[in-house]
C-alpha cells in the first residue's frame, strides 16, 4: 500500500498502486544513470516491467526549466517551485500510472535531491517539506554515497564542471573548482541528514560500478521479489546509515562546507508537518 508524505493530491487514488517505487539518489557524477541502465536490463530479464524516470524530464515543464537555467535567471524560491511542478507532473502522469499498472519504477533522484538543493540555498526546511509532502513514499531509497575528494576526479575527467552542479548561482567566487567543491560538500552534508531522517539504504559509491551494481541488485531483489535474503547479501548490500562511518576523505572539506552559505534548517523538531519516512519496505528478516 502506498501513501504520501502528507497531503493527497486531488483525484489521486493510492490504494491500487501495486508496483514498486525505487529511488536511486546521490549527488552529481556519482554514477546513478549507469546503475539505472544496468538495473533496468537486469529487472527486465527477470520478468519485471520497468519505468525509468528522472528529474526535469516532464512533458509540461522540462523544456521551460532547461531554458530558464540557460539564462541563469531564476530566484531560489522560483527555481524550487519550478522543480516541484515538474515533479508533480511526472508523479501524476508517469509514476502513478506505471505503479498502477504494476511496473517497477526506477527513478533517478526523487524529492530528496530537490530538497537538498533548496536547503543549501537557504530555504526553510519546514517549508520545503510541506511543498513536497504530496510525494509518494517510495518502497526503498538507495543512496549512492561518495566523498567530495573521490567525486572531483570523476567529474573533471569526464565532463568538466557544470555551472549549476558547481552552485555558481550561490557562490560569488569565479573559480569553478572552488565553487564545485564547496557546493558539493554542502550537498553531501545535507544528504547525510536526510539519509538518517528518511532511512536511506546507503551504498558506498567508491568501488567500481560492477560492485555497486551487485549491492543494489541484492537490495532491490528483496524489495521487488521479497526474496529471503541470504545473510551475506544483507551485510554487503545495505549498510545501516552511520554518520561516523563516512570515508575519511570526506572530512577534509568540512570547514568550507560550514560557510554561511549553508543554511541551518530551522526547526527540525517533530513539529514539522511531514512525518519522517517510514523505514523503506525492505522486509525485516523474520526468522528465516
Amino acid at each position, binding site marked *: 500500500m502506498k501513501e504520501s508524505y502528507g497531503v493527497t493530491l486531488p483525484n489521486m487514488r493510492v490504494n491500487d498502486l501495486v508496483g514498486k517505487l525505487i529511488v536511486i539518489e546521490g549527488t552529481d557524477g556519482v554514477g546513478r544513470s549507469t546503475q539505472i541502465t544496468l538495473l533496468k536490463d537486469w529487472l527486465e530479464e527477470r520478468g519485471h516491467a520497468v519505468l525509468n524516470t528522472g528529474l526535469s524530464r516532464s512533458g509540461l*515543464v522540462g523544456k521551460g526549466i532547461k531554458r530558464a537555467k540557460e539564462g541563469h*535567471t531564476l*530566484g531560489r524560491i*522560483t527555481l524550487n517551485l519550478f522543480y516541484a*511542478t515538474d515533479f508533480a507532473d511526472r508523479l*501524476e502522469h508517469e509514476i502513478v500510472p506505471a505503479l498502477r499498472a504494476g511496473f517497477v519504477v526506477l527513478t533517478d533522484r526523487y524529492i530528496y535531491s530537490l530538497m537538498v538543493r533548496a536547503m543549501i540555498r537557504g530555504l526553510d526546511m519546514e517549508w520545503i517539506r*510541506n511543498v513536497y509532502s504530496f510525494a509518494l513514499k517510495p518502497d526503498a531509497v538507495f543512496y549512492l554515497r561518495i566523498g567530495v575528494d573521490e567525486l572531483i576526479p570523476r567529474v573533471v575527467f569526464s565532463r568538466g564542471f557544470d555551472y549549476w552542479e558547481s552552485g555558481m548561482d550561490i557562490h560569488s567566487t569565479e573559480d569553478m573548482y572552488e565553487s564545485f567543491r564547496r557546493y558539493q560538500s554542502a550537498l553531501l552534508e545535507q544528504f547525510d541528514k536526510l539519509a538518517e531522517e528518511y532511512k536511506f539504504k546507503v551504498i558506498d559509491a567508491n568501488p567500481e560500478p560492477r560492485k555497486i551494481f551487485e549491492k543494489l541488485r541484492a537490495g532491490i531483489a528483496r524489495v521487488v521479489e521479497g526474496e529471503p535474503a541470504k545473510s551475506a547479501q544483507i551485510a554487503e548490500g545495505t549498510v545501516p546509515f552511520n554518520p561516523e562511518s563516512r570515508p575519511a576523505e570526506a572530512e577534509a572539506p568540512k570547514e568550507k562546507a560550514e560557510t554561511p552559505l549553508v543554511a541551518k534548517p530551522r526547526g527540525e523538531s517533530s513539529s514539522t508537518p511531514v512525518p519522517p519516512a517510514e523505514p523503506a519496505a525492505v522486509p525485516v528478516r523474520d526468522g528465516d
Partner: protein
Amino acid sequence: MKRYGDHRFPGRLFIVEGIDGSGKSTQLMLLHRWLRSEGYGVVFSEWNSSMVVKDTTKRGKKRKLLTPATFCLIHATDFADRMERNIIPLLKAGAIVLCDRYIYTAFARDVARGLDRAWVRDLYSFAVKPTVAFYFQVPLEVSMERLHGARAGFKFYEAGLDLGLSEDPDESFRVFQGRILEEYEQMVPEYGLTVIDATQPIEAQQEQMRQVVISKLEKAKQLRVAP
C-alpha cells in the same frame, strides 16, 4: 527565508481580489491613475506575467496538460518569480506596488480544485503581506450578468471545465465560481481583507478605496517622486 508578515519594506503593497466580474480591475486602474496624478512612484504588477514561466503556463493551458496540482504549482512558480525579481525589489526601493489578484486568488482557486487548504497556504507563505488587501464582494448572479454582457463564452480553466463539474460551460462556471466565492468569504476574517461592496456605483467604491489608501500613505511622503 522570510515568511508572510515578516517583511519590512519602505514601499507599500495594495492588492485587489474578487471573483471574475466583481469590477476589481477597473477599481485598481482608477486607483493607479489617481496615485500617479498625485506624483507617487507607482508600479502595476500583473498576475501571470513572469516571462520565464509564462511559456510553460501557456503551453499547459493550451494543450490542457494541467491537473489541479500542476495548475497550482505552475502558478505558484510564476508568482514566486514575480515576488523575487519584481515585487520585493520594488518595495525595497520604496515604490507603491499594485497587484490585480494576489495569493488569495490562488487559495480560492486551488482549494476549489480540491487541493488541501493548509498546504496551499503554506506553499505561498513566502509572499509579502500586503499593506491593504481589498476584496470586492459581489453576489454570483451580479458578476455572471456583468460577464455575459462583456464577452462571449468562458475560458476552459476559468470556468473550471477541467474538473468535469458540468458539460455546460455556463453551469460549470457557476458551480466553480460559487466554490471560489465561499473560499473568499472564509478569508475575509482569516486575513483581514478590506471588504468593498462591489454592487455600489463605481465612483463610491473608488472613493472608499482612496480613503483607505491615503491613510496608509500619510507617513510615507517620501514615496512621492514628483511634486
